């Protein structure tokens, strides 16, 4: 890339020595993007935006937060009451966390639906699963910081899971706690890690984008771009399309922050942590509920922990479980039905995770958990062999032109 293309002499001078503008220019104009991406392809950018919002608000919150069991709850209340616009920054941080998960869940289901995990994008997909895992760890530790009742008891329940590991479990839990119960050392290390991990996420996001730009985005049809007639430049077409998504995202986030700031939280977290008093129901944040349901579906503690982690691990090996050469569900009629069944199954798991583990809920959790694994471990491999897929279009531009004619 030559530097001559820039009119501004300062930009030209810098770019000659540090070709950062050429790089940006390259991504903006020369990076070919399939011309048929729908709004489901907004969610990667939205997840990036959510990460930036979380980091910016989080850094400001950290300036006013005190990581000590005696002061954490009070310092959060001070942010809510005395810090200028502290209530706004905290409510944005709280709600953007939920929105981050909503966006990422849609992003994941989009990948599942359109087969975005298939060759040659396996590593892109796996890096995404790594980001998801890091997000879960970060969100869990962040929820502990206000040191309310759910913070404390959530931390107690989740860290105790590690005690299920044979032989070394108890030692690992003591190591995690930095003592013999969830206490000040636990809060301190969680704060430290909660501050660190978003930057690890940002690092993996860079890898995720490098892997993405190797082969470019998948698309709703799931066939590769055959040439320039199938692609358009990222700017201005997808920058403006992403802006529509960003506007929608910010609008919904604003509605939550300003009018329902505590709807996705738990009232018990406005009660200061009390190690002597267990809440009636300990429930994690809503975005963990499907995994919580899988954890509790197994009567054995170790089994539950293994199954819960397997629920995510199965996503790592998904590219090798679904061997169908056709990517998009549009051309896989049977897969499409099972995709929606899995989607409903995950919603049901989320519902069951919020219910007490008793009576009919236990049975339903087991069935829903079984279906989750059946989908990935049995149905997808079988479909790869037995499903009759519909004929694929010859190229991306053909059906695009066809629809354009049909509409116009």
């Amino acid at each position, binding site marked *: 890339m030559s530097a001559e293309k820039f009119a501004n002499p300062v930009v030209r001078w810098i770019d000659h020595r540090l070709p950062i503008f050429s790089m940006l220019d390259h991504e903006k104009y020369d990076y070919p993007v399939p011309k048929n991406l729908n709004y489901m392809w907004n969610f990667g950018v939205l997840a990036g935006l959510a990460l930036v919002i979380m980091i910016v608000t989080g850094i400001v919150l950290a300036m006013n937060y005190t990581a000590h069991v005696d002061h954490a709850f009070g310092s959060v209340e001070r942010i809510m009451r005395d810090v200028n616009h502290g209530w706004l920054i905290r409510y944005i941080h709280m709600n953007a966390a939920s929105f981050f998960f909503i966006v990422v869940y849609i992003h994941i289901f989009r990948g599942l639906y359109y087969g975005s995990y298939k060759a040659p994008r396996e590593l892109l997909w796996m890096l995404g699963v790594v980001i998801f895992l890091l997000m879960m760890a970060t969100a869990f530790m962040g929820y502990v910081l206000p040191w309310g009742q759910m913070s404390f008891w959530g931390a107690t329940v989740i860290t105790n899971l590690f005690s299920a590991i044979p032989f070394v479990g108890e030692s690992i839990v003591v190591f995690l706690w930095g003592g013999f119960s969830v206490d000040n050392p636990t809060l301190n290390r969680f704060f430290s890690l909660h501050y660190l991990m978003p930057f690890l996420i940002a690092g993996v996001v860079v890898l995720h984008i490098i892997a993405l730009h190797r082969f470019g985005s998948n698309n709703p049809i799931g066939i590769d771009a055959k040439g320039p007639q199938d692609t358009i430049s990222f700017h201005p077409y997808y920058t403006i399309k992403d802006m529509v998504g960003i*506007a929608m995202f910010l609008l919904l986030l604003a509605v939550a922050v300003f009018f329902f700031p505590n709807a996705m939280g738990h009232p018990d977290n406005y009660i200061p942590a009390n190690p002597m008093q267990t809440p009636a129901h300990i429930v994690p944040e809503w975005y963990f509920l499907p995994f919580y349901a899988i954890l509790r579906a197994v009567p054995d503690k170790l089994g539950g922990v293994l199954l819960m982690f397997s629920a995510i691990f199965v996503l790592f090996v998904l590219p090798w479980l679904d061997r169908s050469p056709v990517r998009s569900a549009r051309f896989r009629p049977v897969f499409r039905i099972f995709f929606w069944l899995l989607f409903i199954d995950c919603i049901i798991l989320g519902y069951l995770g*919020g219910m007490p583990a008793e009576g009919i809920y236990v049975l339903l959790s087991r069935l829903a958990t079984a279906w989750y694994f059946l989908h990935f471990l049995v149905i997808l491999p079988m479909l790869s062999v037995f499903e009759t897929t519909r004929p694929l279009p010859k190229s991306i531009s053909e059906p695009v032109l066809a629809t354009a004619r049909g509409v116009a």
Partner: protein
Amino acid sequence: MRTFLMASAAALAALVGLASPAMAAGGDVKLQAGEWSFAGPFGYFDKGALQRGFQVYREVCAGCHGLDYIAFRNLADLGYNEAEIKAIAAEYEVMDGPDDEGEMFMRPARSADIIPNPYRNDNEARASNNGAMPPDLSLIAKARANGPDYIYSLLLGYEDAPEGQDVPDGMHYNNAYSGHLIAMPQPIYGDDVEYTDGSPTTPEGLSADVTNFLMWAAEPKLEVRKRIGVAAVFFLSIFLVMSYFAKRRVWADLH
């Protein structure tokens, strides 16, 4: 795929909606819904109700319950001016020190002081209440599911226990409390305080006023939050519409 997007949104809304009853404490109670000026996108605090509610707090609740996150200066939100706040604060004594001799001493409270707690510590609070701990009220309206309705219903929920319900000594029957047995004796009977503005001092009136006050205590920035929210939603709606038409304009030359 538009249906996908809408299905996801609907499913998530359903998930949140379905999960919240599970999070509410106890399913065996029915709350009475009050009419709150602070509800809705244009919600605001009724300053008269806040002042009356503060009076109810001082004369009824403050015997046992603290407000550990509220300072006298915060009462400016209720419509009191600086002199009135100083006068209110001066009615309380707080411990200060140590002085130059190393002694702690009592002095009249100032605006910057936290409203003093009726007890020196939790142990004294328990000892004075049959072992039950009267919770701090600063955040109670957010620390209970449907906080305002809950407080209102709880204050009005005292009644005779039904046949066969055993009420142990020191407990009281309340139809709004999970499990129905609450350690707090009925605090409000009607006419417990004398209002200067002639507002009704029925149990409902007093309970509604103190609920307003406690909602303010838990969420003092509610008014400014909703005010900014209306502007933000208005602005972002226009931004969304403009982005959408800009997108169509840019994409028009592709076809």
